[in-house]
């Protein structure tokens, strides 16, 4: 059924396209600006004012200087440890919890466990008691402080439980008859059948670990333990024009330090963001799926 567009609809469609293009540009431009600046010639950049439509020259000096900073490398290593270790623990614990809660058989304490978990979605001890607890357990200056305190998210467990419950019970029953126990059912039947929800969860937890910085900021004093985000905070926000950036810059050339400082910041931003952008196609796909699962539940 094809219906001829009225003049108003044509105007609307054009206008709509225009708005979408503007919106896309506004979203993308700051990131492009950072990218262009990071590869620009520092001298020319410092003389430039206003929008940047293409890189001013092409120099990768800033990137080398950033990589020379030992904190960037150790930051990356620490972040990778936290992302891998944290996500593995998250998934393991969430699977256990979701399996327990998804069982159909009579379990006396199931409801109690559920209530205990749901309460924490609405009320918690807050920042200060949490801090006192974690430091009291001796996790100060230990990467475990970034991994263990957030081991399970109730919200994610509930989503996983819903998904586990969708797996036909007949599969498990025949396995039980073959002598399987709960562990083998979880790891040999349920988990292989739930790959897509596990992928969503892994990405959710993983990105959270990658981007998190506050626990690191309050629990870690040793700079060698800093994850990348905290290193970035030093470079970008704390004393925006000083210490870190200048130490890096001055290792290049004394009188050019001020100019290089600016490109270094941009290069650091790119270096800390590229890994996320590399997995972005997966993120987009699975996160959108995740939002929809969450929406169905709500």
């Amino acid at each position, binding site marked *: 059924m094809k*219906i001829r567009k*009225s003049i108003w609809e044509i105007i609307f469609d054009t206008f*709509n396209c225009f708005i*979408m293009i503007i*919106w*896309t540009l506004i*979203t*993308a431009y*700051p*990131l492009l600006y950072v990218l262009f600046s990071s590869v620009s010639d520092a001298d020319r950049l410092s003389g430039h004012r*206003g*929008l940047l439509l293409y890189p001013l020259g092409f120099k990768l000096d800033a990137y080398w200087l950033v990589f020379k900073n030992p904190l960037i490398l150790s930051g990356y290593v620490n972040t990778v440890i936290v992302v891998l270790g944290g996500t593995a623990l998250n998934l393991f*614990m969430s699977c*256990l*919890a979701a*399996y*327990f809660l998804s069982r159909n*058989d*009579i379990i*006396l*304490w199931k409801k109690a*466990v559920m209530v*205990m978990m749901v309460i*924490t979605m*609405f*009320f*918690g*001890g*807050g*920042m*200060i*008691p*949490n*801090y006192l*607890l974690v430091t009291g357990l001796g996790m100060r200056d230990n990467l475990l402080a970034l991994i263990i305190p957030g*081991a399970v998210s109730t919200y994610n467990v509930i989503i996983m439980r819903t998904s586990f419950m969708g797996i036909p*019970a007949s599969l498990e*029953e025949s396995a*039980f008859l073959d002598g399987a*126990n*709960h*562990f083998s059912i979880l790891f040999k039947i349920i988990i292989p059948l739930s790959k897509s929800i596990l992928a969503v969860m892994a990405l959710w937890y993983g*990105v959270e670990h990658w981007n998190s*910085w*506050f626990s690191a900021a309050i629990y870690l004093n040793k700079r060698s333990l800093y994850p990348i*985000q905290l290193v*970035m*905070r030093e*470079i*970008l926000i704390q004393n*925006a024009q000083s210490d870190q950036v200048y130490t890096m810059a001055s290792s290049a050339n004394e009188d050019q330090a001020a100019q290089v400082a600016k490109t270094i910041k941009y290069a650091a*931003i790119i270096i*800390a963001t590229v890994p*996320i952008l590399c997995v*972005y196609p997966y993120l987009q796909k699975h*996160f959108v799926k995740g*939002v*929809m699962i969450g*929406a169905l539940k*709500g």
Partner: protein
Amino acid sequence: MTRSLQTDILPIKSAPGFFSRIARDFKKNRLLYLMIFPVIVYYIIFNYGPMYGLQIAFKDFNLRAGYWASPWVGFKHFKLFFESYYFGRVLRNTLLISVYSLIFSFPATIVFALLLNEIRNRIFKRFVQTITYIPHFISIIIICGIIVDFCMSDGLINDIISFLGGARTPLLQEMKYFRSVYIISGMWQGLGWGTIIYLSAITNIDQELYQAAIIDGANRFRQIWHITLTGIRPTIIILLILRMGSVLNVGFEKVILLYNPATYEVADVISSYVYRRGLQQLNWSYGAAVGLFNSVVNLILVVTSNRVSKKVSDISLW
């Protein structure tokens, strides 16, 4: 099914006491309990532990004495907070930041979702979505780093302002611009991502409704208004209620990354105040008291808004 049926019938026959029922259940499900054990331990230590620790809000806590030996002081810290100058300031800032971002970003997200849905070219639509979802995944540190850089007096935004004939100002050093910077950057980051939930609600609308509307002679605008907007109304209501429930829940991360002593007056929210007083100035008990006040108010707001939603729309979270 037969397995659980049998075990279900057994207790009725023998009518066991409370403890033997626990014992029997524990024996039957011991593997399941073994599985859930680490999770329960985690919840008790890391979720209920801090709740137990909240007692310090009613004590004069000091680290050396510990939880037990610190003396009880009742509501002293709450009184101190309510009577202090900061109570009004942080409450006002939290409410203003929350309400302003609600007023600006909530309708904008709906409008953008509706407009995006009207794009007929799939490739173009996918392109717009791909680009506008990106900022959601960039860490808040990087976002704030870019904001700080752009807002400096020789930054990009000031370049544009001065090109348009305005005077250069370090935006983040000025009280009057803090909230605008906070909210506009929040919209820049979240608008695209926020549309997903509406777009997914729109896909659930029955396509026949549109066909019927076309036959009845409804034009595009009437279709948007009467079908699309009506179709996503439940989603809008539930999201609005959720937002109302978290109106005093402004996150501290972006605030403490962007504020500085020059802008505390307009930027300091409850959570950033807890952070500063509790963790930076080490007033443990005072910080815990302010935090407890915030959690209790949040809880009341969530429960109330859920009640309201149940009454007006039959939609609720639980």
